[in-house]
């Protein structure tokens, strides 16, 4: 009440006195619905993952957790191929991070620090990838991957995932480096550093948090990708490819366990990069 009374002379409108609390109630109701909309399916798939066979077929269900156990999850991880798929997913995602940073960051640095003929053509190439359904390009790669021995390896999968993550990495690192004043580097040159030393000692430490966020995005892009990973693997499947393959024949609680394992890193990662999310997407969506 005191706050409203204090605001009264400033706004001078009687309408603004009564509306805010009603509006705020409406706002928070709406937000509560939206938060539930996001969280409830995750909660239910978690119940399915830890409920085991009994839990999945219980009828009618209660929304409260009942007889949860780790047994269902350990059973799932014990199935032949699941652990291997998990490892393959981690390898592919790790390699995607390495490749997209190693290839993307230098390009981002070049775009940020230099003006050179052909720069717009390069930007166009990067943006062009946006207009194509990239995962589909895995289809013709099967043949050449078999020829080069890349087929059915996490390494091969990571190559196509890098195509997905690289344009993103280049654009984000570009703006990252643009945010670091050129003068810092020039000062290091004055003190006798080579260009490379100046970059390693001055620019890199400043860019590190942003680079870490870019790396996490690359990881998530690879971890989540289904289509290309399924096309390019047979025995050394990634977790997504494995789950897709067993969809039709595996019992429901195994599918939920797999879905839950897929979701966990995403939730943690989005939490880790939440400060960078909007900056990154503001840039990447231009």
């Amino acid at each position, binding site marked *: 009440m005191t706050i409203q009374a204090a605001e009264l002379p400033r706004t001078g409108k009687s309408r603004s006195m009564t509306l805010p609390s009603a509006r705020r109630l409406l*706002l928070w109701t709406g*937000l509560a619905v*939206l938060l539930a909309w*996001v*969280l409830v*399916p995750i909660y*239910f798939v978690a119940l*399915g993952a830890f409920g085991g066979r009994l839990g*999945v077929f219980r*009828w009618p*269900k209660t929304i409260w957790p009942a007889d949860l156990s780790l047994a269902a999850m350990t059973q799932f991880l014990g199935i032949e191929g699941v652990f291997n798929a998990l490892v393959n997913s981690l390898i592919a995602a790790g390699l995607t991070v390495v*490749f997209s940073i190693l290839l993307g960051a*230098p*390009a981002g640095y*070049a775009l940020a620090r*230099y003006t*050179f003929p*052909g720069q717009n053509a*390069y930007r166009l*190439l*990067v943006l062009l*990838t*946006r*207009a*194509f*359904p990239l995962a*589909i*390009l895995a*289809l*013709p*790669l*099967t043949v050449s991957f078999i020829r080069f021995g890349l087929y059915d390896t996490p390494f091969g999968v990571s190559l*196509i995932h*890098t*195509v997905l993550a*690289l*344009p993103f990495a280049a654009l984000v690192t570009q703006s990252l480096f643009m945010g670091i004043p050129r003068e810092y580097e020039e000062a290091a040159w004055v003190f006798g550093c080579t260009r490379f030393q100046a970059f390693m000692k001055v620019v890199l430490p400043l860019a590190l948090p942003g680079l870490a966020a870019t790396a996490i995005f690359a990881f998530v892009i690879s971890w*989540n*990708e*289904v*289509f290309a990973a399924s096309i390019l693997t047979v025995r050394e499947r990634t977790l*997504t490819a494995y*789950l*897709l393959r067993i*969809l039709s024949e595996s019992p429901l609680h195994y*599918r*939920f366990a797999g*879905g839950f394992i*897929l*979701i966990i*890193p*995403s*939730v943690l990662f*989005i939490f880790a990069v*939440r400060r960078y*999310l909007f900056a990154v*997407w*503001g840039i990447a*969506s*231009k």
Partner: protein
Amino acid sequence: MPARTSWIPYALIAPSVIFLGALFLVPLVQTIWLSFSAGDGFSLGNYQRMASDLNFSLAVRNTFLLTLVVVPLQVVLALAMATMVTKLDKGRDLVLWVLTIPLGISDLAAGLAWLALLQNTGYLNSALYALGLIQGPVGWLSQETPWALFFAIVLAELWRATAIVLVILIAGLQLIPKEFSEAAEIFGAKPWTRFTRITLPLLKPSLQSALILRTVLAFEVFAVVYALGGRNFPVLAGEAYVWQNDNQNYGVAAAYAVLIMAISLAATAVYLRALRTRPEQLP
């Protein structure tokens, strides 16, 4: 002081150019070439086989239907979310974090999460049973209930991919100067007028990139559909997968890929034209 042109920038971009050339441009050309070569020389055989397949017209219809329903709904939902979030001062970060969680969730996992809700003995049926609306478990995701299955896929897609639209729109909203809206308020513009006359036009570049990104992704929708309905609901990318992996016919799979790419490019071109922003309209 712009740096003098030297070999350095070229050396820096060269690795990524070579990489994108080898793994983006080459497969792109390969796909097109593969789709036109059945037997010997140029032929439309693959396309004829694709078009005469039983599932083809269904897949085209379903993919378009999904895109036309999901993408506009996502934009509206994301706009509503963004407007609500910008009104918050307390708890804003937490709310944003929760709302953006689906951003990192795989389409396959999203399909499985909704499967937990919608399966025969799932939570939706339990709720309906508790309300006395159904007598026992009911199947929603089978071939006999195509519209319920369609609706389930729409829900899962809305759940999973609205977050990306939200993030792009919020990033765009942050670029709009507050003064414009405040000025309009002083001249007596109602909230709705301010939204349609100021926020929306200034948000056009962000809307454009969100729409392009989402539409391209919507045309390659695949894993959500498979997780919920298997092959009960054919879509274009799913058919490409089946021709490649199950039928081992790379030519027809390539024809599907070219079709998906052509549709995506056409959609991108439409958005670029329809939502053009002249430089003088930028804030």
